[in-house]
């Protein structure tokens, strides 16, 4: 069956964070931050390996990373790390069936209890913590 006949939304639909509320935005941010952090991990491991080539090689690497651009990347990594952690803990707890509400008789206008205000608060707290950590990180990195 061709893709048009199957009518799947595809990657474009999957990454579209609009239309379905805050949970969908959090899903998208979790994925994006996860990929970003994996890329950083690989880069960080390569970066630190230069220490084996001696002081000159290490300092050479520092001259590339210890720059305003490098610090901006680090600030972004701090934000992604904190959001991914905060939202990840929310997901772990929820995926165990905790904090998603209790089944009951649905009543019009049918507000889904799994998308409750505590869940939304946790997402906003993760975003706020990420923003605070980024500000603190920027202060440390650029304040040196």
């Amino acid at each position, binding site marked *: 069956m061709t893709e048009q006949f199957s*009518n799947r939304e595809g990657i474009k*639909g999957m990454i579209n964070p609009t239309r*379905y*509320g805050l949970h*969908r935005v959090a899903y998208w941010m979790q994925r994006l931050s996860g990929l970003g952090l994996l890329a950083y991990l690989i880069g960080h491991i390569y970066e630190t390996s230069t220490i084996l080539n001696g002081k000159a090689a290490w300092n050479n690497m520092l001259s590339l990373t210890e720059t305003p651009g490098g610090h901006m990347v680090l600030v972004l990594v701090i934000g992604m790390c904190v959001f991914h952690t905060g939202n990840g803990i929310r997901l772990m707890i929820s995926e165990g069936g905790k904090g998603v509400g209790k089944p009951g008789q649905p*009543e019009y206008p049918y507000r889904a209890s799994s998308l409750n205000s505590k869940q939304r608060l946790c997402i906003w707290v993760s975003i706020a913590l990420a923003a605070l950590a980024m500000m603190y990180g920027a202060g440390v990195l650029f304040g040196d």
Partner: protein
Amino acid sequence: MATVEVPQEKKAESTIPAPTQSTPKTITLRISRFNPSENAETKFEEFKIPVQKWTTVLEAILYVKQNLDHSIAVRYSCRQASCGSCGMKINGKPRLACYTKISELESNVVTVEPMNNFPIIRDLAVDFKQLFSTHKKMKPFIVNEESEVLPGTKEFVQTPQDLEKFLQFSYCIKCGLCNSACPTMATDKSFVGPQGLAQAYRYTVDNRDQGKKERLKIVDQSHGIWRCHFAGSCSNVCPKGVDPAMAIQLLRGYLLGFRT
């Protein structure tokens, strides 16, 4: 002799405000047209139609079908959000056409397309084969060796509390909106989907059922329950308040050891 005074009938003063007059307005209905036997291209056709404030999207489509173009393919039946036949993408979001009023969309242009993640049969009609097949795989029935109907056996006892554990999930009308909104379904053709997973939970949590182990084995696969990332889109679009996202997380609780 005692007399009973019959009170004179008073003309009741109505407390209900008189219905406000609805002024008909004209909107543009954009309908996605696709006929695989003719050509493989989707095109949109526009129709100017009169609507009242209570006109539903389904009524608007049927107006076009009756008066302007008979060839539009659309599936519908009950017109009251009970049969789950008229699911479609309305202004970019999966909804039931019979349950969505044009006025609530707050737009003079209404675009209707077939639901995503389902193969298109023609125009707005999509193929539910995969949804029904995954639904069937979840064993959507009570698994119990002891039958209620054999002589010498009695009815299963079920308290209102027992009933409440699964009642919500049994309201699923299999309209497919949840599968259409799910971000995993957008790319993963092997994923069970929120509809199937919610039904797996509905029967697993039923105290008459003994098929928990079998169902958990079915969903604990590479394209099973773990491909749900709690994006909540399924629950966001469900027209019956089934909340598939909740059912999936509760079902996952068994696999993670949070529940027994």
